[in-house]
């Protein structure tokens, strides 16, 4: 993992040389005098902060570039107006967990022959799981900011921005974070094993030390036709982390018209084909076509229903890119706690 070491404010008690530590480590050796050193953190938790690499101009440019992407309102670039741009530090729990174990069981495979007879075969499986799992989770209440985990773990680390950027303190417990980290690692290992019917499972987790990473995030607030929206920008890489933007009624109309037409055509094709080619597998083709038609119709409905607002990020209850209507009040309430 390309993590860079942190070397701020810590010195070797033997020779006084600056020491570098890596996230999650409690033992280091001094590179100047070879003394072995032990890190005692607050309840064994280390704190790491990433250096902010983004300025207000870059954050605004990232937000405005994002306005142009996807099915957002076509006049957003002209009408949208940035009202406020400021950075905050958000805390994240972070750790790496070694996962080792076995998942055993079976998979049932059903086959049909040309006469329509079906047979079910049981395929036995034993799958070894041995991997490292990276966990991160926001350590405070993110409200409706749409940020719940950390995607980037590399960058310059320093605490010097702490005096300039408002920092949100951790509010969730480290024990709870550890439990969630282990549960997530086990669940991912279980899913990765791909054993549908499990008869035996032993998955062991070996967690490293938990760290708190303070990560710089830029909050860009903007208005569009008397409504307020928020976009967040990664303070290290400069890319969009989350955001809400107005949708476009034209795209909604096009979607409902085009989607229903396609759904009707596909379903109709299936039914006509089944009628003309009676027998054999034509029945299956008709059912398949109807299923595709229903799927297209559902996607169309989803787009039409939620297309008045485009949402990106890890919002609670979010399904796909297009989600729930904007709750400006909730966002503003959340941001009051972060503002400088």
């Amino acid at each position, binding site marked *: 993992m390309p993590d860079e070491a942190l070397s701020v404010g*810590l*010195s*070797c*008690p*033997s020779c006084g040389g600056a*020491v570098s530590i890596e996230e999650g*480590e*409690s*033992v*280091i*050796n001094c590179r100047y*005098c*070879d*003394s*072995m*050193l*032990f*890190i*005692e*953190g*607050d309840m064994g938790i*280390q*704190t790491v902060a990433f250096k902010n690499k983004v300025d207000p101009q870059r954050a605004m440019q990232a937000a405005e570039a994002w306005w142009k992407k996807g099915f957002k309102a076509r006049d957003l670039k002209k009408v949208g107006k940035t009202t406020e741009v400021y950075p905050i530090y958000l805390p994240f729990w972070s750790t790496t967990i*070694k996962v*080792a*174990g*076995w998942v*055993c*069981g*079976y998979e049932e495979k059903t086959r049909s022959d040309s006469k329509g007879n079906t047979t079910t075969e049981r395929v*036995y*499986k*034993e799958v*070894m799981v*041995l*991997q490292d799992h990276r966990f991160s989770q926001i350590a405070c209440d993110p409200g409706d900011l749409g940020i719940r985990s950390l995607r980037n773990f590399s960058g310059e680390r320093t605490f010097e921005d702490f005096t300039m950027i408002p920092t949100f303190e951790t509010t969730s417990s480290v024990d709870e974070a550890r439990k969630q980290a282990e549960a997530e690692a086990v669940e991912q290992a279980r899913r990765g094993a791909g054993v549908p019917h499990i*008869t*035996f499972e*032993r998955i*062991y*987790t*070996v967690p490293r030390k938990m760290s708190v990473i303070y990560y710089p995030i830029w909050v860009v607030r903007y208005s569009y036709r008397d409504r307020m929206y928020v976009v967040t920008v990664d303070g290290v890489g400069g890319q969009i982390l989350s955001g809400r933007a107005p949708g476009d009624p034209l795209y909604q109309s096009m979607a409902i018209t085009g989607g229903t037409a396609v759904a009707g055509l596909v379903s109709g094709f299936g039914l006509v084909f089944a009628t003309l080619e009676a027998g054999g597998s034509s029945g299956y083709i008709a059912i398949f076509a109807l299923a595709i038609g229903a799927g297209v119709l559902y996607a169309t409905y989803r787009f039409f229903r939620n297309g008045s607002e485009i949402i990106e990020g890890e919002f609670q209850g979010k399904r796909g890119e297009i989600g729930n209507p904007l709750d400006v009040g909730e966002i503003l309430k959340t941001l009051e706690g972060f503002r400088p």
Partner: protein
Amino acid sequence: MKVIQVRCPNCNSPIMSKQRDLLFLCQQCGTLHVRDGGVNLVDYEIADFAKSAPIQGRTYVPFWRIYANFTILSKNSSGGSMYKLANWIKGGGGDSGDVFIFVPAPDFDPPTFKRLATDFTANWPKYSTRLDFGGVPRLPANLPKEEAVKLAHFVIITMEAEKPGVLQTLDYTLDVKDARIIFLPFNSTPDGLRPGL
């Protein structure tokens, strides 16, 4: 955060090392200790290289050797009938007994970890011991004892799963009696680590 210098709990000498290592070995009195929730002494052995082992690339690898009683309460595998029949003819497969489980302590990649753990657990190494490393470098340990015990379970299940047949259920007990560090001799080659026993 606070940084403290690690000192030997026996003679109070500072522990020096050119690499980050969870095992603190005192160069003055030879005491080995770890700091996992407190200062704990660890028993250890240093295995001697075989006379035939090449001089070049010699290195020591620390293993947690877990001594435990392993009892299979019930087991079910699909297939592997010939193996089961042969085992039955031999008078059972040894469903209970004391075992040494070797868990590599350095931070190896998963395939290397599995290979070394299962190889040494299946064929316990025989060696004569020595009192020092004789100037041979050693790999740093990155695995505390409690976690080594967890991984011992993984190793023992792996041994069972890799027998013929597809494992379906395994109910067992693993009663750990002792855990100590064994520094085993290896030769570092372009093809990886080769045991120097």
